[in-house]
């Protein structure tokens, strides 16, 4: 089980240290860790599970903050990593973001949270709702309140009822004047197009995100028009398994507020909404590059926030790139980004220019990979559609809102 958790800033400073067992883990481990991670050319390349001479370290990096956990015994690695991810999520929600200043300003709260989330190395609860009942978030209201009333205790004096209830994710009896629930389908398209322009892989990872504000203990059921297209699904603990197994209906008592009801994967899609066609021709020490972007299968909604990014190979001395639409930027680290925005109806955006190679190099051997980003509001490209959402137990009316959104995920085009 975990012995210690450290929070490190992006300069390697120990911002917080939480010892979990009787065997203190010396801080020097952080110095060791930091030496290791700066010796890596790219901090992203550091493995999440590493062995130091004395401990096994798990690390999760969020917004420049490293969550580092140490252990000396065998344990499920995913448990440690998942836990650290949850800690990061909870802190993010509590502090309204994650950065060095926020953590340093609120370190008492962070300690309090860690105290309730893990004891003696065993994770206890990471449900935000339960934690919020035990430790009030440092929001503006409570800050104002504390100034006015002079009592600034951010600890609620009641224990959460939910810890004992059968629906641990839900706080007892929230009350709302307006009952409303919003369901968002958020999809990310991962695609790989190889050098020959063939779509070798295309799949969608989607989530059903729900924001629920309903009085009492509502029992909801959500169904899709075409659940059969889903390849694999994962559920929030609130989802009952049997109705899904027999009728593909999501039956659940929702947590209060924002949560991820379900995530799913749809494989083997045949089409991408846009095409990106890079072309590179080398001759006599220079390389001519042109990239064409356009709509391939019109989804019927506007495609916007289109970006194309790629890393110039290190053997390129200079690049001169222009586009007929959008803005081309070449950053210091040889990252070239072309932000197109919305694809115009009348012309296909293109970027072209020349790359000057290192002296002595005749032609280019290393070819960049183009990463494409886009966003389509109002449609889930997997084709998944919500059929209906019903409220069973509670008799009153409530407002239902549905939205859909598709983004480019790991969408890459090789050249």
């Amino acid at each position: 089980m975990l012995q210690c958790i450290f929070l490190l800033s992006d300069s390697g400073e120990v911002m917080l240290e939480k010892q979990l067992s009787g065997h203190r883990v010396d801080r020097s481990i952080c110095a060791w860790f930091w030496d290791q991670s700066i010796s890596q050319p790219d901090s992203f390349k550091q493995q999440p599970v590493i062995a130091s001479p004395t401990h096994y370290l798990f690390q999760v990096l969020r917004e420049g903050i490293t969550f580092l956990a140490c252990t000396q015994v065998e344990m499920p690695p995913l448990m440690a990593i998942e836990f650290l991810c949850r800690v990061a999520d909870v802190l993010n929600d509590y502090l309204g973001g994650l950065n060095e200043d926020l953590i340093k300003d609120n370190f008492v709260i962070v300690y309090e949270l860690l105290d309730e989330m893990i004891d003696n190395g065993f994770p206890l609860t990471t449900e935000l709702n339960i934690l919020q009942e035990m430790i009030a978030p440092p929001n503006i209201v409570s800050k104002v309140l504390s100034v006015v009333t002079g009592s600034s205790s951010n600890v609620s004096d009641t224990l959460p009822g939910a810890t004992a209830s059968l629906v641990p994710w839900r706080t007892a009896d929230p009350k709302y004047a307006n009952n409303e629930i919003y369901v968002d389908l958020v999809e990310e398209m991962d695609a790989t197009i190889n050098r020959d322009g063939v779509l070798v892989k295309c799949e969608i990872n989607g989530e059903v995100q729900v924001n629920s504000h309903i009085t009492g203990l509502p029992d909801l059921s959500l169904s899709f028009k075409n659940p059969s297209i889903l390849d694999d699904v994962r559920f929030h603990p609130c989802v009952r398994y049997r109705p899904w197994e027999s009728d593909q209906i999501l039956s659940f008592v929702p947590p209060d507020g924002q949560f991820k009801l379900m995530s799913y994967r749809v494989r083997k899609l045949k089409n991408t909404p846009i095409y990106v066609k890079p072309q590179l021709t080398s001759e006599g020490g220079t390389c001519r590059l042109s990239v064409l972007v356009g709509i391939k299968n019109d989804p019927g909604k506007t495609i916007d926030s289109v970006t194309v990014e790629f890393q110039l190979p290190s053997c390129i001395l200079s690049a001169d790139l222009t586009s007929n639409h959008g803005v081309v930027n070449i950053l210091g680290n040889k990252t070239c980004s072309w932000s197109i925005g919305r694809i115009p109806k009348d012309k296909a955006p293109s970027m072209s220019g020349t790359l000057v190679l290192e002296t002595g190099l005749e032609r280019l051997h290393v070819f960049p990979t183009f990463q494409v980003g886009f966003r389509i509001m109002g449609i889930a490209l997997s084709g998944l559609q919500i059929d209906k959402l019903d409220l069973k137990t509670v008799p009153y009316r409530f407002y239902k809102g549905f939205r859909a959104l598709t983004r480019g995920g790991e969408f890459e085009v090789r050249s």
Partner: protein
Amino acid sequence: MAPPPPQSNRSPSPSQPSGKSEVSDLKSQLRQLAGSRAPGADDSKRDLFKKVISNMTIGIDVSSLFGEMVMCSATSDIVLKKMCYLYVGNYAKVNPDLALLTINFLQRDCKDEDPMIRGLALRSLCSLRVANLVEYLVGPLGFGLKDNNNYVRMVAVIGVLKLYHISASTCMDADFTTILKHLLLHDPDTQVVANCLAALQEIWTLESSTSEEAARERETLLSKPVVYYLLNRIKEFSEWAQCLVLELVAKYIPSDNSEIFDIMNLLEDRLQHANGAVVLATIKVFLQLTLSMADVHQQVYERIKAPLLTQVSSGSPEQSYAVLSHLHLLVMRAPYIFSSDYKHFYCQYNEPSYVKKLKLEMLTAVANESNTYEIVTELCEYAANVDIPIARESIRAVGKIALQQYDVNAIVDRLLQFLEMEKDYVTSEALVLVKDLLRKYPQWSQDCIAVVGNISSKNVQEPKAKAALIWMLGEYSQDMQDAPYVLESLVENWDEEHSAEVRLHLLTAVMKCFFKRPPETQKALGAALAAGLSDFHQDVHDRALFYYRLLQYNVSVAEKVVSPPKQAVSVFADTQSSEIKDRIFDEFNSLSVVYQKPSYMFIDKEHRGTFEFADEVGNLSISAESRESVVPAQRVEANDKDLLLGTSEKDEGRDPGSNGSAYNAPSLNGSSAPSATSQPLADLAFTTTGISGQAPVASLAIDDLLGLSIPVGTAATPSPPPLNLNPKAVLDPSAFQQKWRQLAISLSEEHSISPQGIAALTTPHALLRHMQSHSIQCIASGGQSPNFKFFFFAQKAEAASMYLVECIINTSSAKSQIKIKADDQSSCQAFSALFQSALSKFGLP
């Protein structure tokens, strides 16, 4: 009132401390506030506490404020309390005397009306971890376990575990485990139940090495009623507690197949849990349960495929890496099941290289007739990757697939394309591969040689690639026009060749070339042999000398030796043994999978048992050169301190029973123990393990061989060594018990018993009298046929040192298991021999 400027808002937040002067500053301020009851005092206290804690957080030693902090701790403000608890918990260990001051207010808080405060106080009380304060813990813990609030009970249960780690005897004497056992099965709150499970597992695992009863208790955790009770409630548990329960279920052995299916049906939906840790723990249960049922096991693979692949593609990069390592393990075990999912293992551009590496290995593994073409096409794209190590790996992967025999035709073309890519590292890797390929498929030599012939040896720098090229030049010199001349020019540059491997290959290649094309090569051969003979590298020199003598003796014999007709290699040796792979598989959902090593190779067993020397290790200066020298010494120290658990290296090899996952092969043990945490896991170098490991291993192996191979009853009994026992030794039962608990197991062995012995062992008493005649007294015995259990003791003549023996005899298997504990470790072997000889004479007329 005007709103305060934003600047002042920030002032209570931790400003950068300036060091010593600030600490003394804080000290005086705290003093002033200590007795103050003035309104607003709490606010100023809170600011001060915050400053103190922020100093502590940054790493400045503020332990000198301990007294003042405790004085200020009399407050009703819960935030202040929490900060105070935090501070006290951090520094109590270094200030045991002052910690006593805090006991009072913590104990009072443990009786507070508010369950939150009761819980917090109890948690802090147990977190003080000061050994001489444990007496104050027992009372509050006892109340806490019976508290009517689940939060307090939850804290108290973990508190028991904390107490156990501070002082095991106090914890056992207070008999908290009985209460935990009750709570485990009866508490309405699942978190309490989960904590009980965690605590009991840890306590009994640690206790079981010394106490039979604890071992039995640990077994009951795995009994059907307990497991079923937990399984039936599993949906009520928090996701983390579910992981714990699933971990337990994975160890459960169902009595029949229908039970297996029941459990799997019950847990089926856990595979769709949002928490990856739960999913992986469930997968482990499924895999373990079905190990013996091949067809169902297969279905399980099919079933878990989708959840695993989803886990990989969703989630953060860290999570996906951990899942990917597990997927990697499964793919390597059953590649055919994943062969249609090969596209999931395609590398994404901005994945970290360790992920790409795993994926490349999986791509290699899942390649079969139907997908080879696509996989190889994909791999070839990576050869132009920006990341050079990955480019290399992918070329190697292409080669490996080629060696798997699928669609070699297309692959050879690709490899030859690599050779023409004019990138030095690509050429190098491809050369090595072409060489391996030719060894397996000599029929491709024509095509390959044509391309290889065009490569100028000057463009190849890497030793491995150069060696490969030279090998081909020698092997196919009759087909390559200018082979002798290329070799000759290489020989001319002998002195510039730094790699001994290349020079060795060069010698051999020139020899081979000589046999095929003598007139053209003669000159080069002479030069090579001359250069080789004067080479400073021993191997090169020896080989040159060997060739020279061989040629002198008989040229045709030399040809037979150096250049015999080649046989195609059918299988290249696998690097990892299947036994190791199996062991990693058994440890599914653990660190072993991530490191691709069974945990005995990297987790020190001491750590699994107890955290005893974690502190020292933590304070070690972590420098590379000190590692090897420090760790063995430390082990000795740890062993001395930690007799309770019997951690000397010898015991571990001998005592398969004392540790849940002990290994029977002594050589494994020897290498595992020292490798411990000191090893950078990347390469387990056996040379370093030798430093502390070799001596005991050697003797151990021999001992074990002797002990196991000589049937004690029939063969000549080992002559009793010169160890004399006191025939009238006395030891009262309580003293025996105490000793048994204190001492470590010094020997643990298994022997077979002669048939006559078994026949005579109708009642325990028969053996008692017999052993008594050999001056070995029995203190307790019991059991019924076929299982008997005895506790013996003996005393060395004219010395106080005692030997304690636990002996379990199974008459149906004619085996006896013996555990010996001794005051005097050195004579333990001798005593063991004596004991055996006495035992072996049992039943003989």
